[in-house]
C-alpha cells in the first residue's frame, strides 16, 4: 500500500507537466490562467499524497486547505483584473 501511494504521486507529478505546455504556449491569457489553476488543483492532491506517504496527514491537510483557499482567491483576482479590460478593439487581440 505504501508503494502504491509512491507510484501514484510519481504519476501525478508527471501529469502536472502536461498543462504547463498551455501555460507557456497558450494563445490567450485566459488559457494561461485556466491551466495554472489546473496545476494548482493537481498539486493540492499531490500534497495530500505526500502527507499519506510521510504518515503526517493531519499536518498536510491543513496545508492543502490553505493552498486551495489561496488558489481560489488568486484565480478570482485575476478574473477581476481581466474583466476590467473591456471589450476588445477591432484589430488586434
Amino acid at each position: 500500500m505504501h508503494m502504491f501511494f509512491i507510484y501514484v504521486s510519481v504519476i501525478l507529478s508527471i501529469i502536472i507537466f502536461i498543462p504547463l505546455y498551455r501555460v507557456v504556449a497558450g494563445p490567450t491569457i485566459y488559457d494561461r490562467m485556466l491551466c495554472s489553476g489546473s496545476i494548482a488543483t493537481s498539486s493540492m492532491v499531490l500534497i495530500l499524497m505526500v502527507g499519506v506517504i510521510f504518515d503526517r496527514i493531519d499536518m498536510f491537510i491543513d496545508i492543502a486547505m490553505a493552498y486551495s483557499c489561496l488558489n481560489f482567491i488568486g484565480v478570482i483576482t485575476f478574473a477581476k483584473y481581466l474583466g476590467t479590460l473591456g471589450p476588445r478593439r477591432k484589430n488586434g487581440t
Partner: protein
Amino acid sequence: MERKKDNPIVSLVSRTVSPFIMLFALYVIFHGHYSPGGGFQGGTMLAAAFILIRLSLGMETSQLQFKSSWATPLGSAGVLIYFGTGLVALLFGGNFLDYGFIPFTGTVAENRSIGILCIEIGVAIAVMAIMVSIYDDLLKGSPDD
C-alpha cells in the same frame, strides 16, 4: 447594492466561503505551536478573506465589513502588542522577548506558551491590517474598484 458589473455567482460564493476562511485563519494563528503556521501565515489568510470580499462586492459595500480607515490604527496596535510583550519581559528582569519572566499565573512553561500566543496575535493583527491597507491604497481613485 447589486451592481451590474458584479458577477452574482462569485459574489454569493465568496460571501458564503469567507467566514470559513476567516475561522481557518484564526485556527492557524491560535494553533501555531502544534501545527504548521503561526502569526504571519494566519494574518495573511485573514487578509485574503477580507480582500476576497473587497474583490467580489466592490469597495463601497465592503466598507460595511472592514473600514479602510481602521487599517492604520490596527496595524499600529499590532506592533504595540508585540513590543509591549517584549518590554514587560524586559521590565521583570529578563531579556527582550524572554517569555519566561512575564508574570502570568502559572509555571514557566505555561507562561512561555501564553507569551508566544500574545506575540502571534500581535503579528497577525499587524500583518492583516497592513495587507488590507496596501490593497486599498493600490485601488484608490480607480473606477473599477
